[in-house]
């Protein structure tokens, strides 16, 4: 059973209506309480509890197979938690390992299709994202001809099409070249702070192994190790070495 996103007020069908209608500005956009996920008898993670407000970026660190992707799918409502609860007070955008794009369609057609499903009638939104993600030159090329980096840009554009309140990013810098990474870091920074004063900033959960990017963007960091979420801990010290040392220490703890 797919979870129906628990959106306060109207579900974000309109591109501008996804700002957690009904929720106060300071209310958390995303709340997890003791979330557990199992596949059969195998427990992936247990008792994951945190909350995320507008303008906050939670970075998730963990080794391969720790369950970071599974946790993001649970947060997005694509997977049902085996225990606990997830509350989303806004619309969700997800950048996953897969692009969710149709290879036989062009970049523009993929975005237009996503826009239609979100009920966005404003064609300018597609143009804006093509421009913002640097895809204008390739907008009429089929995705099958795209490099991985271009596909990743399209995946990010698709996730942003409905101006989500909560953005879940699974390795968003994967396959991007240096200018691409810089573009995405800048874009994410803008998304977090965009309209923050008017209560429209976004909450982001960021899974990445690139610590340099993590310290640039994150406001807190959680370590998903041994099936448990340690943290989120505030980013008091924005030093890669400190984060790396803390992470290594947790990994080596039996």
């Amino acid at each position, binding site marked *: 059973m797919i979870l129906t996103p628990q959106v306060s007020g109207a579900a974000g069908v309109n591109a501008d209506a996804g700002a957690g209608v009904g929720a106060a500005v300071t209310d958390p956009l995303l709340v997890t309480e003791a979330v557990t996920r199992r596949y059969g008898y195998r427990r992936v993670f247990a008792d994951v509890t945190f909350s995320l407000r507008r303008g906050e970026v939670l970075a998730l660190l963990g080794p391969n197979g720790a369950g970071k992707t599974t946790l993001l799918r649970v947060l997005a409502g694509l997977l049902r938690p085996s225990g606990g609860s997830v509350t989303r007070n806004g619309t969700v955008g997800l950048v996953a390992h897969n692009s969710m794009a*149709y290879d036989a369609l062009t970049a523009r057609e993929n975005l237009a299709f996503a826009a239609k499903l979100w009920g966005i009638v404003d064609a300018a939104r597609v143009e804006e994202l093509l421009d913002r993600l640097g895809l204008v030159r390739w907008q009429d090329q089929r995705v099958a001809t795209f490099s991985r980096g271009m596909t990743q840009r399209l995946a990010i554009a698709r996730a942003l099409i409905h101006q989500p309140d909560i953005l879940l990013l699974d390795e968003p810098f994967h396959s991007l070249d240096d200018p691409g990474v810089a573009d995405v870091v800048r874009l994410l920074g803008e998304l977090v702070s965009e309209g923050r004063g008017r209560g429209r900033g976004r909450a982001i959960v960021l899974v990445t192994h690139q610590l340099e990017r993590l310290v640039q963007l994150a406001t807190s960091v959680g370590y998903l190790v041994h099936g448990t979420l340690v943290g989120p801990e505030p980013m008091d010290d924005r030093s890669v070495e400190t984060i790396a040392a803390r992470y290594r220490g947790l990994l080596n703890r039996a």
Partner: protein
Amino acid sequence: MRDYLGVVWAIVVKDATVEWRTKTAFMSAVVFAILVLSILYFARDPTAVSSMDIAPGALWVTFTFAAMVGLNRAFLLERENQAIDGMLLTPVPRTAIFVGKMTGNLLFVGFVELISVPLFVLFYNVSLAGRLPQLLAVTAMATVAFVAVGTLLSAMAVRTRFAELMLPILLLPFLIPPVVGAVQLTSRILAARPASELMGWFKLLAAFDIVFCVLAILLYEATLDE
């Protein structure tokens, strides 16, 4: 309702565009249909069996198995790059996704049938004069029944490791009732039997349509569970 139909239409257009550009399923289904019709025709002994005796069976074997090619493709397309997740993240009703995929499949199978019928007429020397409306009704009703259940089972089978093998295994038992009804009706229509002989089978096909469509729409969401 307008939004619902808009989503259904968007999915149909998207599937048709993808199929138009790739043509993988359509070409496979058409080639398969030509092969089956011709093999069954040439395999019979013309001195012992008239072409009209095997025509209804040949037609429905062709339609059924050619349709499976398209049904298999329907959700495999959504698994490429996990595109289905992109749809599930949106607030669109799950039933709209199913109805969109099913409508796309109906169009696909309809086109394959459209191409197969002239070949059927040619090979089996069947005259459709005066029988076309009835044959169209049978074809439409039986197609709706097996496409409804086929789309649902395709959504289930695509999650298994051997999706293309699983669909026929799962689908064939469900196809027996509507296809038997369709064969019976086709043979009676081609033999110019009176309308009173047809009504019972038509009612049966209508019942299958209603049951299969309602059940498929109700059960679709369960196929999305991981």
